[in-house]
């Protein structure tokens, strides 16, 4: 069974956002890639084929677009794909040390998944939360900000216990929603 077979209503909604022309339909490519990525954790060659046939293009075209962006994964990821911002402000705030801690703690590198299937990791470029550095994003969820060592370990622990991201209590002054001003964080 195809991934989109039971998602025809969703597809119709997506197509309705763009012009009703072949070029217009093509614009649905990114939303479709994202949907597969969200639901399956990666976009397999079979899914790329399926998207191509729905949009009337080739799997090579789909792969070409896919490989352009950081979010779409060509290899399977863990249930929690941890993306660590590595750009300047986060680097100043300790993103490299955070990354090393993750590698140590989980025993994996980019492209690998922990044996329990829970975690995979990726360094990404600027996430646009420079004032709450260092910043981490799990899957497609809102950011985890001001990720100190204690907060990182609480985060991993909570995820291992199967808690939803927003249920995990993070130590420190800030909760999950960190303000537009870092003062409340004390980071």
């Amino acid at each position: 069974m195809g991934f989109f077979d039971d998602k025809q209503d969703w597809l119709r909604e997506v197509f309705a956002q763009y012009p009703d022309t072949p070029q217009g339909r093509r614009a649905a490519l990114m939303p479709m890639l994202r949907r597969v990525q969200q639901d399956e954790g990666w976009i397999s060659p079979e899914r790329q084929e399926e998207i191509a046939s729905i949009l009337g293009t080739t799997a090579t075209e789909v792969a070409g677009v896919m490989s352009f962006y950081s979010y779409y994964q060509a290899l399977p990821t863990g249930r929690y794909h941890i993306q660590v911002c590595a750009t300047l402000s986060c680097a100043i705030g300790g993103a490299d040390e955070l990354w090393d801690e993750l590698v140590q703690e989980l025993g994996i590198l980019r492209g690998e998944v922990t044996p329990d299937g829970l975690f995979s990791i990726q360094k990404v470029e600027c996430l646009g939360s420079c004032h709450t550095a260092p910043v981490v994003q799990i899957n497609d969820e809102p950011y985890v900000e001001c990720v100190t060592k204690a907060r990182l370990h609480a985060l991993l622990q909570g995820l291992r216990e199967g808690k939803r991201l927003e249920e995990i209590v993070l130590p420190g002054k800030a909760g999950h929603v960190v303000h537009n001003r870092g003062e409340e964080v004390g980071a």
Partner: protein
Amino acid sequence: MSSGPITSGKDPRFERTLYRYVGQPGCWTLDFYLAHGGYQAIRKAIQQGQDWVIEEVKKSGLRGRGGAGFPTGLKWSFMPKNTGKQHYIVCNADESEPGSFKDRYLMEDDPHQLIEGMMIAGVAIQASKGYIYIRGEYRRAYDRLVAAIREAYAQGYLGQNVMGTGFSFDLYVHRGAGAYICGEETALMNSLEGLRANPRMKPPFPAQAGLWGMPTTINNVESLCSVVHIVERGADWFASMGTEKSKGHKLFQVSGPFKRPGVYELPLGTTFRELLFDWAGGPTEPIQAIIPGGSSCPPLPWTEEILDTPMDYEAISAKGSLLGTGGVIGIPASMSMVDAMWNVTRFYGHESCGKCTPCREGVSGWMVSLFEKIGTGQGQKGDVELLEDMLDQIEGRSFCALADAACWPVRGSLKHFRQQFVDLVENGKPVERAGSRWG
């Protein structure tokens, strides 16, 4: 203080507008927006008409807040009229310049302000359809925008014949997926069309042939939100803030080791000192340089002279840098400038789209390799000159501005901090990474 233009956030005449509701409970809902006078500016814009809106925005002196600073009203006036074609207004919400995070809270906490701004732009350029291209990682902002658009449709603020005015406007949100180049307007259009986000040849400019070949204008989130207040309060109100050629207010962002990093809405012409000390609380450790407007802007040394420089397009440019997005990054004295530039170069190398040779080979290949060589202590005499030679070969020779953006910070660092590069190269030492701030 009480006469003359407003150039300080401490001037009693200055009031926050763009961010006035950010952080308040429920501020992203339609009810909240309506209760605070929302959707009045669009009524005025529809009544006064297209030409009035363009003139008013021109008169206000608003310049694009995405980084390039191109006058918004002038950009709108480039759009052809009565073509019979579908015109598009596209909001650039890709916000991918490192150091920038102002648009995020505009969308998270005041999405209706942006929707209203897009509708006003729609009036100005005869666009009945708009797209917000939002960077894929901004999940909360996306959720809030989609919810706001749904509310606006349900209550007649979007769709056919909005508020009974005869004006129709449809608005959609398109999510990116992690690519810096999508902030370049023609690359953004390709991305929206489901293609690889390579920039397009200009001309034709988007106003002639943009999204799906139709007349299109692309504006930044902050620019569009500013327009709401310009229409509501008039061009003279906006122009009463700022300096001679840099009018209005702007969202400045502070990151790095400061007491209160974050977003601060201030008049243009406010000094770095006021932003970094009075608002951001001052540094928490010695700073050696600031990047004034996002990572592509040349770093400036942490001196009294720079701190007293007003933040406007002209004054910062006179000091050899750029206002950019207004994202100020403080680089601590304990971090080697070579290390900082290594990071920034790696960023641009990763984000190069690969379309043109100077950027693909020059930035992603040569510059990144040389920084790895110097940064890991394998530098040799002549490497600093080699780096300069690379900058000469790349800058101004690439297809779009990304390669320039990669060169400017390195050139600025070589101008002010050359000795740090020379020391590393001559001693063959790797960059030091002492004193982690992480714990």
